[in-house]
């Protein structure tokens, strides 16, 4: 009886690990599909900064649980990697989009709503 319960617990833990790994992989896949399908730099950055963070964290949490349950190793590196992706990926998105705007990539818009462009123009006029 006790053995049966242990086997069931083992199966359920494996299912939880599988859910984490599969959802992480799914989010990474859909973020890359988004990169292909969206029209310009800024909308593509939406896909990479958001979906990729959750995808990577899901994969790393799955790996952490696997290491802990199967090998009884608490891997601090995996947890640190999650924290660092959460901190750095929005910074990367911010920097890439700002650099793109500085080079002169126009965002795809219908009504040309670009407040940042207007602010830069205003400042240039002010300097003259």
């Amino acid at each position, binding site marked *: 009886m006790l053995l049966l319960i242990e086997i069931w617990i083992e199966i359920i833990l494996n299912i939880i690990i599988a859910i984490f790994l599969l959802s992480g992989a799914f989010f990474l896949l859909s973020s890359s599909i988004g990169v292909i399908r969206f029209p310009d730099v*800024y909308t593509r950055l*939406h896909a990479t*900064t958001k979906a990729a963070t*959750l995808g990577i964290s899901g994969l790393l949490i799955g790996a952490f649980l696997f290491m802990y349950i199967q090998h009884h190793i608490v891997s601090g590196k995996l947890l640190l990697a999650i924290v660092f992706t959460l*901190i750095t990926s929005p910074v990367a998105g*911010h920097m890439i989009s700002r650099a793109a*705007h500085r080079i002169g990539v126009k*965002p795809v818009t219908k009504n040309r709503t*670009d407040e940042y462009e207007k602010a830069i123009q205003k*400042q240039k006029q002010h300097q003259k």
Partner: protein
Amino acid sequence: MTFQIVINLIIAVMWMFLSESYTVSSLITGYILGVLLLLLLNRFIPDTFYLRRIFKIAGLIVLFIKELISSNFSIVKLAYKKNPEFEPGIFALPTELTSNWEITLLANLISLTPGTLSVAVSHDNTHLYIHAMNIDDIDETIGSIKNTFEKAIMEVTR
């Protein structure tokens, strides 16, 4: 805040020496006792109780994770739609936050929330320029950012 943490650690170490068992568990017991003492003597010590601030930081982290997950679902939905209909654009968000640290935190939080990506900060630190997936409901977005994130950050830092 630092003063209270130092006092709490001193109480914990003192408890360890008084009970003459130099283990981690007695240190933790002393720390919990110190928290209780600080809570009891709260009105005689400058500043508010420091654990309250730590709870607020934890609340901010929970909010961050919640927004991250909801933003992921919205972006996944858009990625698989047959004809993705959205109207991107860049809008300006006036902010009341002043220090560099606060603005960095706000820009990072905005980048990871549904439909928004921070593009730049104005030179005088008063406006954030944000790229939005749907420019139609800007007012709603500005309102929600001001009500949730700015409030939460202000509660932690001030």
